[in-house]
């Protein structure tokens, strides 16, 4: 048993609860975007743990690749699928949630206590010897000698994943399904369709939010000026009131 440094203990006691809170928040948040943000919190604290545990390269890769690339990919897909794609609360299997939580707590207790009891007597060697020439150099000398085959296979995996994603995301359009420019113009000027561009959202002295509708000449909110996915924000009476801007602030 070896005691870790005082600074590392402080980092662990602060970030470990944050990581667990992030994980729990991700599981419990109704909104998928909130789930993604909670998961980013957990991944950032894990990245700090890697750096603290003498793995600066893997910690930085964790922050750049996981929180920077993978989670942003998640957020992109969430925005494509729709922000309102939240979970239904109806249970299809009776008692599934309770059983799942009981199983999860059991798994956590079993894994945690088992691994702790199994490894607590070990003396950590520490990475000072392995990191003697620098962490990145040490990793590189292993990757390009002992793990060079796995490293090469990884490139095949990445290229096939990229090709697979392109094939999956590709939409085949037949020639007769394509709409020509002339047909599009005809459709645009059909009666019942408004040919002009949609108005932008309202910009007022008190609010320039995209959720604030612009006002039509008769004072009603213009429904087409805001995205349908945003909840409609009505102007409050104080915002609707005359601001006396035309009279230079003097009440007429």
């Amino acid at each position, binding site marked *: 048993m070896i*005691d870790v440094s005082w600074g590392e203990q402080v980092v662990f006691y602060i970030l470990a609860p944050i990581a667990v809170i992030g994980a729990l928040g991700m599981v419990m948040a109704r909104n998928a975007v909130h789930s993604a943000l909670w998961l980013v919190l957990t991944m950032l604290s894990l990245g700090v743990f890697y750096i603290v545990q003498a793995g600066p390269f893997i910690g930085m890769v964790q922050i750049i690749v996981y929180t920077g690339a993978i989670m942003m990919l998640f957020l992109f897909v969430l925005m494509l699928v729709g922000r309102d794609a939240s979970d239904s609360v109806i249970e299809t299997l009776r008692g599934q949630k309770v059983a799942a939580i009981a199983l999860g707590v059991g798994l956590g207790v079993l894994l945690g206590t088992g691994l702790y009891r199994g490894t607590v007597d070990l003396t950590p060697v520490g990475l000072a010897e392995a990191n003697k020439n620098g962490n990145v150099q040490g990793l590189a000398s292993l990757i390009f000698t002992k793990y060079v085959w796995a490293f090469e296979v990884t490139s095949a995996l990445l290229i096939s994943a990229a090709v697979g994603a392109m094939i999956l995301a590709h939409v085949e359009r037949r020639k007769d399904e394509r709409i020509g420019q002339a047909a599009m113009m005809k459709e645009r000027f059909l009666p019942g369709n408004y040919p002009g561009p949609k108005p932008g959202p309202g910009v007022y002295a008190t609010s320039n939010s995209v959720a604030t509708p612009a006002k039509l000449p008769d004072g009603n909110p213009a429904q087409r000026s805001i995205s349908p996915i945003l909840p409609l924000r009505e102007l409050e009476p104080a915002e609707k009131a005359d601001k006396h801007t035309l009279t230079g602030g003097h009440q007429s």
Partner: protein
Amino acid sequence: MTPMWYIVLSAILFSVGAVGVLIRRNAIVLFMCIELMLNAANLALVTFSRINGTLDGQIMAFFVMVVAAAEVVIGLAIIMLIFRTRRSASVDDANLLKY
């Protein structure tokens, strides 16, 4: 405190991710839970690397990250494809592998 507490933390995070896979229905959130489980395994690997005094654990964590990145790309493309045809990202709705 010993470095073993990192392993306990990774066990806790792994089981939270497993519970999430069991109780959530949104396919994207399910995917995030799988990512959390992979991250927990990575934390255990990095800690093992420190206990053993070799960098092999960190290299395995690195490969896990690469595989996770490939998996996310393909998985999210499949979710997008299912969403495009079914207008839903819930795993309860996708009970047929056709259409």
